């Protein structure tokens, strides 16, 4: 039985995805680099990408789905403007990460894997940023912040939101 490859409804999205796929498909062990590239482009891995990746890499949809869901770094929903990752690993916990985590959740009003209503921030857990000497650590997009506390976090988010306003 052959199943028709489901076509993404959004053809512009499909074209973008296809371009990234074509760029990476021939690399040995292309799957992870490809998923990273798609996430870099879109902030997440759209469902529509799955059959396209499967076709390009001679996988099936199930396999691609299994791979994406195995790696917690990959998102399957669009994130907010900024992704905030709070370190939950031991060294940070030893210097107050839990308190920070509680503050972050209440300040943003979201739990892990959720996005604020204004789509500013998506909150995610992370397990060690290699910044253990100066925890609690958190990562905002590609920037890592050390010795973070509630006040520092509030300053940081105020700055990030302010930047957005400026940009507008």
């Amino acid at each position, binding site marked *: 039985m052959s199943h028709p490859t489901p076509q993404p409804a959004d053809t512009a999205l499909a074209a973008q995805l296809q371009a990234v796929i074509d760029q990476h498909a021939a690399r*040995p*062990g*292309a*799957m*992870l*680099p490809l*998923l*990273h590239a798609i996430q870099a482009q879109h902030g997440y891995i759209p469902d529509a990408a799955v059959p396209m990746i499967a076709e390009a*890499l001679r996988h099936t949809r199930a396999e691609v789905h*299994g*791979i994406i869901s*195995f*790696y*917690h*770094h*990959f998102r399957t929903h669009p994130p907010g403007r900024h992704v905030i990752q709070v370190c939950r*690993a*031991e*060294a*940070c916990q*030893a*210097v107050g990460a839990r308190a920070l985590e509680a503050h972050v959740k209440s300040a943003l009003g979201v739990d892990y894997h959720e996005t604020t209503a204004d789509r500013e921030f998506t909150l995610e857990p*992370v*397990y*060690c*940023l*290699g*910044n*253990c*000497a*100066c*925890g609690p*650590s958190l*990562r905002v997009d*590609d*920037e*890592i*912040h*050390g*010795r973070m506390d509630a006040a520092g976090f509030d300053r940081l988010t105020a700055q990030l939101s302010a930047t957005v306003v400026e940009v507008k």
Partner: protein
Amino acid sequence: MMATTIYVPCDTTARSLGADAVAARLTRAAERLGVDIQLKRNGSRGLFWLEPLVEVETATGRVAYGPVAPTDVDALVDAGLFEGRQEHDLALGDIEAHPYLARQQRLTFSRIGLTDPLSLEDYTARQGFAGLKQALALTPQGIVDEVKTSGLRGRGGAAFPTGIKWQTVHDTPAAQKYIVCNADEGDSGTFADRLVMECDPFMLIEGMTIAGLAVGATQGYIYLRSEYPLAQAMLDEAIVRAEAAGYLGDNILDSGHAFHLEVRLGAGAYICGEETSLLESLEGKRGLVRAKPPLPAIEGLFGQPTVVNNVLSLAAVPLFSTRAARPTPTTAWASPAAPWRCSWPATSPVAGWSSWPSAPPCAS
């Protein structure tokens, strides 16, 4: 007058504490005062309780200030930082004489904190690529023998003798072999691998290239955890520069030998630090542990003979071929009794979780 060289570390931790802002403010202050400075971003010396640790090159050596918050900069400058004056509370004096550093013998970390991580000039000025040149003069078996004699044991946890692992890959015939660097450093509290990659990436590149020459591998992959964006940027840039300078590529230093290197990102799975899951992940699969046998050295990446070594193991390699720097087998890294990766102390050697080995954190 010659420009004064000012160092502001650029590793993740220094930056996480505002090193970039410190650097920017120093530049602005110099402009304001009309002082000619050369701002260099060095690696971190690992004295994290003192980060951001600003150093000033003086006639008598590098003097330091730390920890410097961005808001301290103006006061420091006013107190004569650009001249290396030591009046301010944050002044630390000659950094090499700092008791924490003074009692260390640094080998793998000998350049770290001193140099601009991406400067080939800095690297070669301090023995960089001497090991590779030495290795190019040896037979593959010769290199393997050197590594065996050094007694180097894997720094990834199991302390397996690196030379023996290489011997297996060397002895397994195959059209394609691989060198895989395990840079998944997942354990909380460990970040020595990160420091190597961010602060002295050429050393890792050199070590992997020598490994390639030793076992006959022409392709290397650094499997790097996605939680280390800065290490990724540093490695990528270092690879580009090394390639451009002929240290990587189809014809390394005109030797006729090829070695290519690529950074591959993990994606947030602790288990992928285990070498067989790492290989699965590199192949693009779910990172499930493979049963051993077969050993990765015999059937590794894409089923081919593969060296899988930790960052520190590979980074230590260039030292072995430079006989002068060669440690005795009693050096810490060769000790099976202390195979575990070093952890760096938290804010100070006494704070936090002092049960972790703290001093010296990393002889290697």
